[in-house]
């Protein structure tokens, strides 16, 4: 009896060992990030968290961003552009199916683009589609898009998460049940906790290597640190506490990727609120700020100083930090010239990320040195969107603009920093219609100089994008050319 018990115990131990052996060949991954999407429709919200989960994984566009920011073919296998640059004929890939089994055809493309540019469209980036005149479905695999005028950015625009192709049959429930064409299918969303995706067995392109993907949402930096340390999550994209990165780097269990982003982190100023409507005052603020102190103090050294609203890794970037170099004496002089020799008081409203909260304390101290007193208010994201972004009820705020190539926001007078300058608007119109790469590059540089010279905002640094992951995971994106966590090429090392 006793012998039998021991033997059966042995068997179960062996079975356990075998099951561990099987579990070793991993095909699942748990990826954590800070922000949870408010809903799951990338075509009707500005929240970047939606794209961080769904872009390329579930939804695809005609074109797509590669890990290095280049624009590659997506659902469109190839395209031809007419002589005058006004009409684009896209040839779609064959055999593309939505996750509900229906075919993706030219009609779906027409539906998606028409929906995004409609008057009642809720798309957060309607400017991407503004230049489209007509969309025609020539045959099931051919789409012809005619523009009002030539737009050298069109293929780039079509790669955005806001321009993904959706199906008319499933659009009603897209916010809770997204149906796309990607290598992963949406499977479950436990609100406040996680979103689960599973491999799409009928994917038209190279299938994903992972079977299941779980996105966990952990907003608290301390909990983020603990979850990675305890290996509860396999990767944390956009790790929120830069001070912990050296510790992960020293630990052989982990790999740390510090990539670049499209996130221009700025001290935004309300250009219509006195005294910030005075360019001299804005210039004084820009000169009062010591960028390196902010990068060191708030980001523990991770970040590249910028002098304008443009990503430093872009070939057209010009380093304009010299136009707002740290010079408190000059700042005081400029303030006096503007008639505020004794300084003034304004508000500084800060969203949750540590770059804003810590950066805000540092900036408040730097502004105090030239006589500007700031009243700091810490806001949650929803409050920030309501008060600052929509309500424009603020003096100063700190935020990172993570959309790619978004200098065009300065041509929108109703944008939250309320910069209304006809010269810039004309300049930006020229950029949009210019097709010659060299002339375009020159115009882009001119635009960067224009906003830096007007000191629309104080430009702080380009946000770094730290990813901490299990050392055995391969294929994660290092950089963030757009907000995305593309897992289609991710796998475990054998």
């Amino acid at each position, binding site marked *: 009896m006793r012998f039998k018990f021991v033997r059966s115990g042995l068997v179960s131990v062996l079975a356990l060992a075998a099951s561990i052996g099987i579990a070793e060949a991993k095909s699942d991954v748990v990826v954590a990030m800070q922000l949870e999407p408010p809903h799951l429709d990338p075509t009707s919200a500005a929240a970047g968290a939606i794209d961080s989960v769904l872009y390329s994984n579930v939804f695809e566009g005609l074109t797509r961003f590669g890990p290095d920011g280049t624009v590659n073919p997506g659902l469109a296998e190839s395209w031809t552009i007419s002589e005058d640059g006004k009409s684009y004929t896209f040839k779609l890939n064959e055999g593309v199916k939505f996750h509900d089994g229906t075919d993706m055809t030219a009609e779906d493309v027409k539906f998606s683009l028409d929906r995004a540019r409609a008057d009642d469209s809720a798309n957060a980036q309607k400017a991407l589609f503004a230049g489209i005149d007509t969309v025609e479905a020539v045959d099931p695999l051919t789409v012809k898009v005619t523009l009002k005028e030539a737009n050298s950015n069109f293929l780039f625009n079509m790669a955005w998460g806001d321009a993904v192709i959706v199906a008319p049959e499933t659009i009603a429930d897209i916010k809770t049940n997204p149906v796309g064409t990607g290598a992963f299918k949406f499977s479950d969303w436990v609100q406040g906790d996680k979103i689960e995706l599973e491999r799409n067995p009928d994917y038209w392109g190279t299938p994903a290597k992972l079977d299941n993907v779980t996105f966990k949402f952990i907003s608290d930096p301390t909990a983020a640190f603990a979850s990675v340390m305890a290996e509860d999550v396999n990767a944390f994209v956009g790790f929120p506490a830069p*001070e912990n990165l050296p510790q992960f780097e020293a630990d052989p269990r982990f790999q740390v990727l510090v990539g670049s982003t499209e996130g221009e982190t700025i001290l935004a100023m309300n250009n219509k609120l006195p005294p910030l409507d005075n360019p001299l005052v804005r210039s004084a603020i820009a000169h009062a700020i010591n960028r390196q102190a902010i990068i060191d*103090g708030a980001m523990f050294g991770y970040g590249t100083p910028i002098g304008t609203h443009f990503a430093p890794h872009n070939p057209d970037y010009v380093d304009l930090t010299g136009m707002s170099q740290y010079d408190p004496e000059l700042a005081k002089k400029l303030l006096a010239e503007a008639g505020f020799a004794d300084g003034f008081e304004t508000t500084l409203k800060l969203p949750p990320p540590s770059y804003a909260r810590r950066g805000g304390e540092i900036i408040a101290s*730097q502004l105090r*040195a030239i006589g500007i007193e700031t009243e700091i208010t810490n806001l949650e994201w929803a409050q920030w969107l309501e008060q600052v972004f929509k309500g424009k009820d603020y003096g100063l705020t700190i935020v990172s603009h993570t959309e790619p190539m978004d200098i065009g926001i300065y041509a929108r007078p109703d944008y939250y920093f309320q910069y209304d300058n006809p010269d810039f608007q004309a300049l930006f119109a020229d950029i949009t219609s210019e097709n010659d790469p060299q002339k375009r590059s020159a115009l882009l540089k001119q635009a960067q100089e224009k906003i830096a010279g007007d000191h629309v905002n104080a430009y702080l640094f380009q946000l770094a994008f730290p990813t901490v992951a299990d050392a055995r995971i391969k294929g994660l994106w290092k950089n963030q050319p757009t907000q995305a966590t593309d897992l289609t090429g991710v796998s475990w090392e054998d």
Partner: protein
Amino acid sequence: MKGLLHNRSTLPGALLTVVFAGAALISLFWVPYDTTVLNIADRMKLPSLAHPFGTDQFGRDILSMLMVGARTSIAVALVAVGIGMLAGVPLGLAAAARKGSLPDEIIMRTNDLVFAFPSLLIAVMITAVFGASALNAIIAIGIFNIPVFARLTRGAALTLWSREYVMAARVAGKGAARISLEHILPNVTNLLIVQGTIQFSLGILAEAGLSYVGLGAQPPTASWGRMLADSQTMISLAPHLAIFPGMAILLTVLGLNLLGDGLRDLLDPKLRRART
């Protein structure tokens, strides 16, 4: 005074309280370093002669931060206890003087209502609606002190109302208000002092808790709770950033509780009689 020193817990309690009250007082006139000036180059330095408790993540002197933080804590807790006493004691006296009447019922049931809510939750609600600031933290904590003092005063006053000297005063024709002020209040003062000390330490804890979740004093005003919150991701990097404010909260609350215990032993007539 002799009795105060006889009690073993009173002296360390009083000493701790004096140290923190003293630090807060001194900070009104002088701190080693200005806590509103950041010096990033000097951040996270270990304790040294120049900075006895080291520097924080922005290069501020932690000793100076703790001194200013003590001022914030004491100011918030003191005013909150003051609100509680000023509103709660008269309510308690009035309720006792009219025992069983409608006003008594209204006062005491309203107290029960406030008491039934988790205090920190309501404090979070108040600061969420009216904005996070030291003033709103004071109001939130103060409101929760009102029923504490009202109940205590009513309970103690009720037993006094049946005493012979109070009877005598009533027979002599004194009104309820005068009796409450002249005969009842002086005899509940001891209890109020003891309770006040305890509420004061709870107030310091509540302020630290609210600041920790970002609803108390806003930067650049230094606050112990926020110092803890800001340093928690750096605890493996620079533990002294969290240890010193944590110790400050612990020792202050410990000191006040020991002092409160000692005062109760000294002031409570029953315990006093037992001792002699």
